[in-house]
């Protein structure tokens, strides 16, 4: 499986963020997007997920499911976590498990929720309404969605924001496991994340003075 962008141009308003950018990510690889604030990392990730339409260029996926859009084969972790504060931690995860993979049986879904709670050390918080969680715990709950349904492409926008050191390590473990199993991931970041094997793409270098 290979995700590639060709001559991608992204503009917000009249500002050109990315001009004629080409790259490919192959299965078993992590692409790290780095660059200063406002360099277009989030816009690039949103255009990969299909929310933002590039002004020029094309994004293609080879070796995926042709009947689904790229976004439908991807997990997208944006700045917001997609959490309902009046539902408990477990209820939040159960909803997304059922919504993202309606074909899975109930037993399968509950097992995935258990695994997700464990991987992101949320087990002891399972019955607490998500509104009571701290910022870092909410982030972990948002990331725990990655384990609820299999999607080959992971799009992560600053996944470690507000995470403590140990949680960042467990995220790296989950991402490395996904990549080792033949998935691919694209992450925007300012910090070294401990993902491997990594290629880096730096945005915003050519910004005019």
């Amino acid at each position, binding site marked *: 499986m290979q995700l590639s962008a060709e001559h991608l141009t992204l503009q917000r308003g009249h500002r050109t963020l990315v001009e004629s950018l080409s790259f490919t990510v192959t299965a078993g690889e992590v692409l790290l997007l780095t660059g200063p604030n406002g360099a277009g990392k989030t816009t690039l990730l*949103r255009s990969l*997920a*299909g*929310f*933002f*339409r590039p002004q020029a260029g094309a994004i293609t996926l080879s070796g995926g499911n042709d009947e*689904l859009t790229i*976004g*439908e084969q*991807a997990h*997208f972790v*944006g*700045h*917001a*976590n*997609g*959490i*309902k504060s*009046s*539902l408990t931690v477990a209820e939040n995860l159960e*909803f*997304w498990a*059922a*919504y*993202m993979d*309606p074909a899975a049986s109930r037993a399968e879904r509950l097992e995935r929720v258990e695994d997700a709670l464990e991987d992101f050390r949320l087990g002891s918080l399972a019955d607490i309404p998500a509104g009571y969680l701290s910022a870092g715990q909410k982030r972990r709950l*948002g990331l725990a*969605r990655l384990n609820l349904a299999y999607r080959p492409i992971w799009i992560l926008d600053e996944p470690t924001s507000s995470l403590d050191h140990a949680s960042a390590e467990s995220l790296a473990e989950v991402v490395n496991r996904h990549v080792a199993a033949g998935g691919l991931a694209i992450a925007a970041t300012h910090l070294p994340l401990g993902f491997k094997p990594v290629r880096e793409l730096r945005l915003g270098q050519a910004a005019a003075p």
Partner: protein
Amino acid sequence: MSAAWTLLKRDLQLAVREGGAVGTALGFYLLVVALLPLGLGPDLNLLSRIAPGLLWIALLLAALLSLGRVFETDFEDGSLELMALGGLPLEIVAAIKALAHWLTTGIPLALLAPLLGILLNLDIEAYGVLVLTMLAGTPAISFLGAIGAALTLRARKGGLLLALLVLPLYVPTLIYGITAISSALTAPDAFVPSLLILTALSLGSLVLGPIAAAAALRIQMQ
């Protein structure tokens, strides 16, 4: 299909847990209707003549109060983006959310209406017809309202803009809703056609509303 059911279940569960929106709409409806006789004076004949119209207009305004929240919370906390990638078409997502709004706001308001009819000296024979027409007409409020709710998602103070956008769309529903009630009392022959047109308006909005709302949501999520 089961993803749609999951989403509907969650929305109803949230409406029960958070409760505020439904309670506010019902309380607003009660207050507006209770204030009207105070403003119009104790002329019982006048009140019973204009009661169907007042009940319908107050219901529109009450439903409008909670419309803004149809997509707002899911948009702000990022859930809507994830739903868009979930495999369910965005049109279905919009339809489910409008349906949840009807179930949690439209139906309770319609059921409260006859109780408020007492305050306006509504003819006792009109009670059944009133509930029937409101149940037939309120889906249009939720499904057409979803378009306005989607369009005003990112607008600051979107509530007022929402009212300006969607109230004109409610004119046909209002006209046929009131015609149905008054014809049931005075000219029974005209009741069934009015009710059928009212139902047709709701069914039409059921199709058009989600398509237009989904198109607006796609723009908002860029």
